[in-house]
């Protein structure tokens, strides 16, 4: 990883941000506060950039589309810099608060970078690297639309938009996969913080904006309350060592969803989507506050929501429910024009979400790719939460566990009350402030968090049941935002019980942030142990594979043959580096989102016997081998293939831990 590449990646990732500042200055001409302009610019710019990039990819070659969009946004960014210099908007936050906010943002950013990096280099998580970053690498190296890295002849039913941004940074800057995705992830994390701050501060005040943003980015299950149950002293006297091993579980709860701190390491596409979503939220607030540029504001808000949905489809129902609540509120106040505008934003957002290639457009337009999705309406699960989700089910949590066979629990089961006491407190107090203190601005925020929690009780994903818990994850972050708003309301209340209100507010924020605070000092330890014993040699192999023409298809020996294998660090995790950093397909047919059955069956035959028919059907031309990990049968199989001149040694890594063979089929003998 070179510092120059990293700097370049961050500069390129910042271009949409600065361009977004120009758009905000244009659409909210009365806004002269620099914290608001900078805060909102990130989300607005990211939303606009994503849709601007994905739309021409429908009809232009990828190289032209990426360059054209970058040139446009660089022009906007330069224009923004010139305008900022000319107008000199004021920074009206005191030095103390500024330092506090930037310090907090610094810790959040370091946490995001650590969690992201540990997923790539230390085997902390796998899906980000093995699936989403792999797609990014293939997009950067190949044509459009991208093929599935695990089923290279097939388009995958998946979202492409955030990966498209990462791939464009790689193409334009010539930077590496890690640098590009790290840069867009961190930029998006800061944009989320800024977007929430600017949106809420526009409605209330900077203090409310800070509390809401802090609540969102630090929200996690209250698993720190179970720290006393940690087995410290039982088998190791070192609290540090025990807690470092448990730090993931601290932030993660029994639902298997997790605090926002872990999101950059698990799914960077979600981070990008949420950033764009808060860009849309800011613009909608500006519109409802009576800005003069109504049509343009509505159009750009719809663009942001469309980009958000295209980057992470599960955010769309939450945004639609929120916009519906807003429209309803406007209608109740007989502001028909505002109600109609908000409804149009929602409709246009949905329409624009179908423009980028990806899962939503595939499903909506009834293509063969879209037919692989299967959702069910399951109201019998109403007011329940899934217990099993994502990669790290909380059944591994030493603190709060549910029986292994119990896949759903009621909202009001003891385990939920223990894990999410602050969610109930925040929702209850939020409702109190709405009805008793007429704080109607809370309604959409409360509505979006509630929607996210309710959806898993109404719908199921029949292909990947686990996916429905993604709503719960987003619900946790949004509930953190609501908790922040409620805490700010409590903090700013006056009267006899002021101290009591403040105490409740502080308690609420401690419950929201406790796990995040408890785990933060242990984050650096996540970078210590690597699961990849031959990491430098894996990167040598990746560089060798990447240097050749794009389109290689590899058999990895020993390596994964199923999805469950792919998302592990077994076999020293070599497959992840082949498919992601090497931009080489491993045609094992990951799942039902591609032609998983056909690829899986053929790959298994190729893996077990180097069966020529299967190898040819899959188009495998490369075999990547970790010789020290081979079983005796596998070693013999390779020796036989070498003697038969079907395998030719192409590359040996520096310490001999990795070999790359060219596979010669009968056709290219």
């Amino acid at each position, binding site marked *: 990883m070179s510092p120059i590449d990293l700097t370049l990646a961050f500069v390129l990732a910042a271009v949409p941000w600065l361009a977004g500042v120009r758009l905000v200055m244009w659409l909210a001409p009365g806004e002269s506060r620099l914290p608001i302009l900078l805060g909102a610019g990130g989300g607005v710019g990211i939303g606009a950039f994503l849709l601007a990039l994905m739309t021409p990819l429908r009809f232009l070659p990828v190289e032209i589309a990426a360059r054209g969009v970058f040139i446009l946004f660089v022009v906007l960014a330069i224009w923004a810099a010139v305008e900022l210099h000319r107008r000199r908007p004021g920074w009206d936050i005191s030095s103390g608060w500024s330092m506090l906010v930037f310090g907090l943002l610094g810790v959040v950013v370091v946490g995001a970078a650590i969690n992201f990096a540990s997923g790539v280099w230390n085997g902390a998580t796998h899906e980000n690297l093995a699936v989403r970053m792999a797609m990014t690498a293939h997009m950067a190296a190949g044509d459009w639309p991208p093929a599935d890295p695990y089923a290279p002849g097939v388009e995958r039913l998946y979202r492409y938009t955030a990966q498209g941004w990462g791939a464009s940074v790689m193409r334009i800057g010539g930077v590496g996969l890690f640098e590009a995705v790290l840069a867009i992830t961190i930029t998006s994390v800061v944009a989320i913080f800024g977007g929430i701050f600017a949106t809420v501060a526009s409605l209330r005040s900077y203090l409310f904006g800070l509390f809401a943003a802090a609540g969102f980015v630090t929200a996690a299950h209250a698993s720190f309350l179970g720290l006393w149950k940690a087995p410290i002293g039982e*088998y190791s006297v070192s609290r*540090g060592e025990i807690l470092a091993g448990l730090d993931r579980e601290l932030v993660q709860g029994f639902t298997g969803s997790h605090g926002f701190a872990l999101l950059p390491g698990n799914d960077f596409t979600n981070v990008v989507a949420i950033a764009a979503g808060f860009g849309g939220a800011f613009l909608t607030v500006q519109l409802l506050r009576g800005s003069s540029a109504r049509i343009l504001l509505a159009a750009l808000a719809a663009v942001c929501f469309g980009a958000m949905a295209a980057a992470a489809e599960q955010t769309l129902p939450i945004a639609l429910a929120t916009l519906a609540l807003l429209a309803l509120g406007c209608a109740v106040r007989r502001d028909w024009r505002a109600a109609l505008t908000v409804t149009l934003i929602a409709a246009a957002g949905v329409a624009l979400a179908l423009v980028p290639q990806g899962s939503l457009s595939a499903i909506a337009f009834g293509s063969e790719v879209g037919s692989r999705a299967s959702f069910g309406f399951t109201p019998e699960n109403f007011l329940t939460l899934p217990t099993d989700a994502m990669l790290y089910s909380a059944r591994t949590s030493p603190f709060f566990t549910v029986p292994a066979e119990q896949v759903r629990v009621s909202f009001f089961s003891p385990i939920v009350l223990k894990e999410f006491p602050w969610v109930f407190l925040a929702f209850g107090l939020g409702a109190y402030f709405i009805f008793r203190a007429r704080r109607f601005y809370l309604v959409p925020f409360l509505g979006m968090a509630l929607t996210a929690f309710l959806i898993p009780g109404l719908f199921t994903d029949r292909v990947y049941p686990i996916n429905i818990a993604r709503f719960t994850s987003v619900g946790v972050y949004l509930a953190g935002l609501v908790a922040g708003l409620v805490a700010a309301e409590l903090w700013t209340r006056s009267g006899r019980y002021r101290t009591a209100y403040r105490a409740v507010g502080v308690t609420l924020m401690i419950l929201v942030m406790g796990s995040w605070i408890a785990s933060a000092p242990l984050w650096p330890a996540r970078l210590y142990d690597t699961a990849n014993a031959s990491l430098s040699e894996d990167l040598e192999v990746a560089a060798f594979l990447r240097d050749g023409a794009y389109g290689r298809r590899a058999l990895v020996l020993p390596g994964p043959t199923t999805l469950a294998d792919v998302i592990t660090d077994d076999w020293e995790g070599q497959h992840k580096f082949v498919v992601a950093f090497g931009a080489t397909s491993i045609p094992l047919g990951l799942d039902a989102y591609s032609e998983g059955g056909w690829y899986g069956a053929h790959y298994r035959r190729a893996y077990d016997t180097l069966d020529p028919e299967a190898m040819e059907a899959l188009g495998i031309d490369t075999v990547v081998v970790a010789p020290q990990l081979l079983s005796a049968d596998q070693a013999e199989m390779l020796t036989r293939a070498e003697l038969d001149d079907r395998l030719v040694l192409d590359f040996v890594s520096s310490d001999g831990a990795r070999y790359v063979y060219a596979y010669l089929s009968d056709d290219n003998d």
Partner: protein
Amino acid sequence: MNISPAKFHTLALAGVWILGVLSWATAFLLPLDWPVSSMTDRSALIPIGPVSEFVVPGQLFGTPEAVSAIDVLIRVGGPFGASTPVGMAVYEDVERTSLVARSGAEPVSVPAGLAVIRFDLDVAIDGNRRFYLELEIPPDNPWPIFVGGTRDDPRRAGDYLYLERRPGWSDQDLAYQFFRRQTGIQRFIHIASVRPEMAWTIVLSLVAVLGMSAGLSLLALRNYGWMTISGAAVALPGLALLALLVWLLL
């Protein structure tokens, strides 16, 4: 006793700076036992034994870096509270030609069974080398003694359990954990040399926390002078860091 505001300011100023300097200096210079390997998972533990002066438990092992203390799991049979002295000897190799370090401890019978026993070595042993250790059970020990073991741990690849000075079961190892006594600054320099990215995250985290502390100090002490505010900004994270290090590692 009346203290004038000026005197109070001076005292506050001196207090925060003394606290700040002391806390950071202690955090950096206090020697602590840093775990340099992990203890076996609870679920993977097996008892090995009974061991004795004849059935001597030994282990061939490699060190990830220099080691100054080794924890092993020992169960002393007999009534709770009964104890027996156990020695540890570390040799260059399994032939025991050269003694490298020695230690002793007195494990006690506890209800939990296997208990973590710390052996502080009289001399720190080198890193990235292989050694052989033996537990020495005294001949007059009246209680049955078991040691904690583990089976098929990939992190113990190349290690080997010995019983009666002969190779034991090939898939078993003693469960152990290594510690290295270092000051915070020594540990940081080591981490910076082997895991620079980890060192960077530590530095950046400290800078961010110092920023937060500066902001808080500025807000809370805005009527005091810059020296008091900067002293509090330094002292707050220093005290927090010291408390954290002591709680995690001491």
